[in-house]
């Protein structure tokens, strides 16, 4: 429920916590405690396109670490950083269940397998292009 609420609002806010608490019949503190536990729940805003790069073992040994460093450099942000225009954010994540098709990247909820720095660049550029066109 919290995850779907976050998807709607963009981040976990005080109002969101209060709303979820009242709908579930619990105190805001109880909701807050749950929010603190799960890594997919964010109190800070993320980019419109949240790029999650797996650097766990299967991805690490097939280039995931380099991929992560590459995208951080390209966008000029660090872990959980967000670009100035608010379009992108980057996060180093744990295994996302794509190990056999590594290295893997997830942009919002979309999986991208057999990733390379070039393919990731192309993906980012394509997103920028379509945003400009709109």
């Amino acid at each position: 429920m919290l995850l779907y609420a976050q998807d709607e609002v963009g981040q976990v806010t005080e109002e969101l916590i209060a709303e979820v608490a009242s709908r579930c019949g619990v105190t805001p503190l109880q909701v807050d405690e749950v929010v603190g536990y799960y890594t997919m729940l964010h109190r800070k805003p993320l980019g419109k396109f949240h790029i999650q790069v797996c650097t766990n073992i299967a991805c690490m040994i097939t280039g995931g670490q380099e991929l992560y460093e590459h995208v951080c450099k390209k966008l000029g942000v660090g872990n959980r950083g967000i670009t100035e225009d608010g379009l992108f954010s980057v996060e180093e994540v744990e295994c996302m269940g794509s190990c056999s098709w590594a290295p893997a990247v997830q942009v919002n909820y979309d999986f991208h397998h057999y990733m390379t720095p070039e393919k990731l660049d192309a993906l980012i550029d394509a997103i920028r292009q379509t945003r400009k066109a709109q």
Partner: protein
Amino acid sequence: MPQFNEPSPLEVKILTKRFQLPNSASIDTYLATDGYKAFLKAREMTPEQIVEEVKVSTLRGRGGAGFPTGMKWSFVPRNSPKPKYVICNADEGEPGTCKDRLLMEFDPHQLIEGMMIAGLAVDAHKGYIYIRGEYRYLIEIMDKAIAEAYARGWLGKNIQGTGFDFDCYTHTGAGSYECGEETALLESLEGKRGVPRLKPPFPAVSGAFQSPTILNNVETYAAVPAIIRDGGAAFAALGTPKNGGTRLFCLSGHLNKPGVYELPMGFNLLRMINEVGGGVRNGKKLKAVIPGGSSCPVLRADECDIPMDYDSLAKAKSMAGSGGVIILDEDTCMVRAAMRLMKFYQHESCGWCVPCREGTTWLKKILVRFHDGRGERQDIDMIGELSKSILGRTFCPLGDAAAMPTIAFVEKFRDEFEAHLNGKCPYGQH
């Protein structure tokens, strides 16, 4: 749609037999290919007969621990007045593992049918599928399959006039490895922080909402329709004694053809690497294999001529785990591998019990120091000692899962740790 690997001609397709069909996820495809027949057959059997058939199949849990499934089901007090629950663990968080997602994407009805048969066996009428939050598209696929099943009378009240009621729901995780642990999953399902419960009572007696509960992995339930349809003995015969059937092996790492392949239990690991996975990539030599997901102790190359089943791997002091087979070539730095995995366990430790929370934190600090070229000789022993002091002292097995592979890294590749003492990685990787 994400891209996946091509199948291998060496596969034995039981659970994945529909994967190549067009619209394999639709209920029409399912019904046209023996779908839901096993449920109707199970409905004619007594619960004891169903459990017995699963026992005969020697099916063991595909989620990690490898517990015999039939025996697990027999622990549920059937005549308890409380409602009972069938819960499917689709949290798939163990590094190296990526099979459950395929079973849900390409054959969601097989999973639903497996859970319904489990419901018949333990007198449960409600099923929950707990899916990790990152798998949003799979939640959508499962929800669609569930809606189709309701619309066509394969879920809900009085299913196909058999008088049996069964409801099925999905539930999302939100980014936590620990929520794959069975009791933490139950906490999370109930809407709380995913921390483990003290056992006993085991979930079979008091699980979800304090009621008797069976909890199995996706692949475990997905095997049930085939077992009931073709008989437990036929399933058992596919594998090795006490290790029946096929399983989805997730080959990853330095291979020419990494991928998920369904192979009989007991398939030889070297053959798996060379014939199914196309051999180690770039003509390199094999250094080591993590045979069942990151929590399983690593095997040196000379230990890899081994049948891949629970008992053979246990004999080799490792584990079959969740079927994630990670291949490491001769250029892999084992200090880096051990360090990265400890970072993972430290990050995912839920903090509920001290040995795990503190132990993984200290081990991470030491391994990072080592990795950064500031390790000292005494650290090598300390890594081993500290790991041993976590073993068996935690609420849930996450502590063990962090400690066991670390002990193996240090014992089997001590020379590599020593080679880092002069401040440089011999592989030039960091």
